């Protein structure tokens, strides 16, 4: 029963791999915005990953993993046919999907993967979905076709202008607003700096913005408190109260600081385990 076998592996970008994993009980229940925690083997960390897609009939969950350190590198080395030891989910509160009217879904870098099921669900709920996809450069812009299929309009921005408009998500948002769209809600998922920049900007515009936080986690059930995020005056546990929060209330400085808790140890793990970005793929 505990199979968690990789049935499909697809390299999306140099350090980014998509896996479709057999996990029928998770697939039966998962909703957009939720995540799983995986472990490769007995000695592995518990690694949180957002669900990018699910197929209830096939009983599979799709995740997209970016190699940023020892564990994600090990995961990305998995081949079709190999298995995860543990695969727990669905965790977290699902996205609040309703018919809002016009909705903007922003995905930055790897963040395009988690925005995908949210955009799809929002569209199915009747929203006019405009997606803004951003990356540093064209090669890193993942899941373009998939996003086009679930959006009414797609705007692409790259830092270096190698694809779409040169600029940031805010540049894309300006374009949309200039066309006269009345945007009701924005979902913004990506690196912390991107979410912070978007939230700062949309606060000035008065557009509600939901971000998905990715603090360091251990259990994912509200037991350890590692994932504390400050939202307004309250401390929340992202794994059970989130991971989505009102971007205008999140303390991003604290969140970014907290991501550095284990920097020294992470470097040691990489050196010890000989699986790192330098290891090459």
């Amino acid at each position, binding site marked *: 029963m505990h199979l968690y076998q990789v049935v499909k592996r697809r390299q999306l970008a140099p350090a980014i791999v998509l896996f479709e994993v057999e996990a029928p009980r998770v697939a039966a229940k998962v909703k957009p915005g939720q995540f799983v925690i995986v472990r490769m083997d007995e000695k592995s960390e518990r690694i949180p990953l957002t669900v990018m897609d699910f197929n209830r009939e096939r009983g599979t969950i799709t995740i997209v993993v970016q190699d940023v350190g020892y564990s994600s590198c090990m995961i990305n080395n998995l081949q079709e046919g190999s298995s995860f030891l543990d695969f727990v989910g669905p965790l977290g509160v699902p996205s609040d999907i309703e018919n809002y009217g016009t909705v903007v879904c922003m995905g930055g870098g790897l963040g395009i993967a988690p925005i995908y099921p949210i955009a799809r669900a929002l569209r199915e709920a009747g929203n006019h979905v405009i997606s803004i996809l951003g990356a540093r450069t064209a090669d890193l812009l993942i899941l373009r076709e998939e996003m086009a299929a679930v959006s009414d309009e797609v705007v692409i921005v790259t830092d270096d202008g190698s694809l779409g408009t040169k600029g940031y998500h805010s540049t894309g948002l300006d374009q949309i607003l200039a066309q006269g769209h009345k945007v009701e809600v924005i979902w913004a998922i990506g690196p912390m700096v991107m979410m912070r920049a978007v939230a700062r900007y949309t606060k000035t515009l008065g557009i509600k913005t939901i971000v998905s936080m990715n603090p360091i986690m251990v259990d994912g059930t509200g037991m350890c408190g590692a994932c504390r995020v400050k939202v307004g005056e309250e401390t929340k546990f992202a794994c059970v109260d989130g991971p989505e929060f009102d971007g205008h209330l999140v303390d991003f400085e*604290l969140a970014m600081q907290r991501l550095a808790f284990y920097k020294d140890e992470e470097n040691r793990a990489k050196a010890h385990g000989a699986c790192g970005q330098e290891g090459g793929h």
Partner: protein
Amino acid sequence: MALKIPRHEMPCQEPAVRAHNFDEVALGYTEEMAVEEAKRCLQCKKPTCRSGCPVEVLIPDFIKQVAEGDFLAAAVTLKEKNSLPAICGRVCPQETQCESRCILGKKGEPVAIGRLERFVADYEIKFGESHGEKPAPTGKKVAIIGGGPSGLACAGDLAKSGHGVTVFEALHVAGGVLMYGIPQFRLPKEIVQTEINNLKEMGVEIRTNEVVGKITSVDELMASGGYDAVFIGTGAGLPYFMGIPGENLLGVYSANEFLTRTNLMKGYKFPEYATPIKVGKKVAVLGAGNVAMDGARTALRLGAEEVSIVYRRSREEMPARAEEAHHAEEEGINFRLLTNPVALHGDEKGWVKSMTCLRYELGEPDASGRRSPVPIPGSEFELEVDTVVVAIGQGPNPLVTKSTPGLELNRRGNIVADPETLATSKAGVFAGGDIVTGAATVILAMGAGKKAAASINAYLNGENRSH
């Protein structure tokens, strides 16, 4: 005669040695020591010791068998009341339970009931044969939510009655606090897993990685899952923080995180095991219960130079087991009593670097009967720290309770269960352990699991269908 034999000390690793390893501190009695200690028992006609044990272990009976050298028979006697003697022998607060009521304690030292219990259970693990006979199946199915001591005890008794039992456990291993909280040096994880393997041999199915409230719910288990009854034993796993400034600084852990990384994820073997744990040089552990002692002693073993327990009451009010406080002291943990932090301060990168503390004195007894601590005005002082472990208590995790309509909770979010039957406000749903009582003890949780198993049995047989 009996009184003349002094209570046998527990052989332990030397403090200076054990402060740097994760091996078990207490080494256990030898056969000779156990027999000699057992002979101290007066075999009272009215054994007061039993009334001090929450599950009323047949104390004189099993001790007599130890004195006679029949250790395996002693194990059978023990297990009549206690499903997890190897664990309870190690972690029960005996000094406030069984041993506090031993008649010998009136004039001298009580019989070392806990140590004998541990000896017998360990002997059985080593030399006993598994009694893996499976009873005839009843065709009834029970879902147990949570694989801690309450859930495991309930599962064991229900399996013995022939019911099909499935344990749903959120983490990747069952055991609850026994696996993620209590450290290896106090309770080797191999012992917990031996108990869990016994359950599996009895036919109990353990489904790890399944968070009830997320992947399934109590209602769903009963409606479409085919379960005739449910036991909820999800514990008190929600860590409390103090609510003072600076608690989200880097270097500030909940005890749960600190201990989970170390025990469950084996961070003490990092980087061989990939989960990091970071401890600085000057560690403050807030609180003085078992969790705090475990946090402090773990910090020491991870390489901290100076570890302090910071507690606003005095030594007498410390809720930790006496043995743990004693071991902690031997290992060189500082006790900064009548002291409490009011704020934590960080450096420019957000790392905790000091705490402002207040000194306290003891005032009048409060509702709990303990003298309540009163801050001394103007007593603020700074304590330099680079790691803080918050161990001031845990509450009920709401994942199951919030997803179960119709389940009555008390003000604190604990499940309300009938003290006799452990039935909840929902028909067919029973609950016990820390989720009902609030953070308590292993033996109480285990006892609740057994009690619930008995009433679930009755419920499944059509008795007691009061709900």
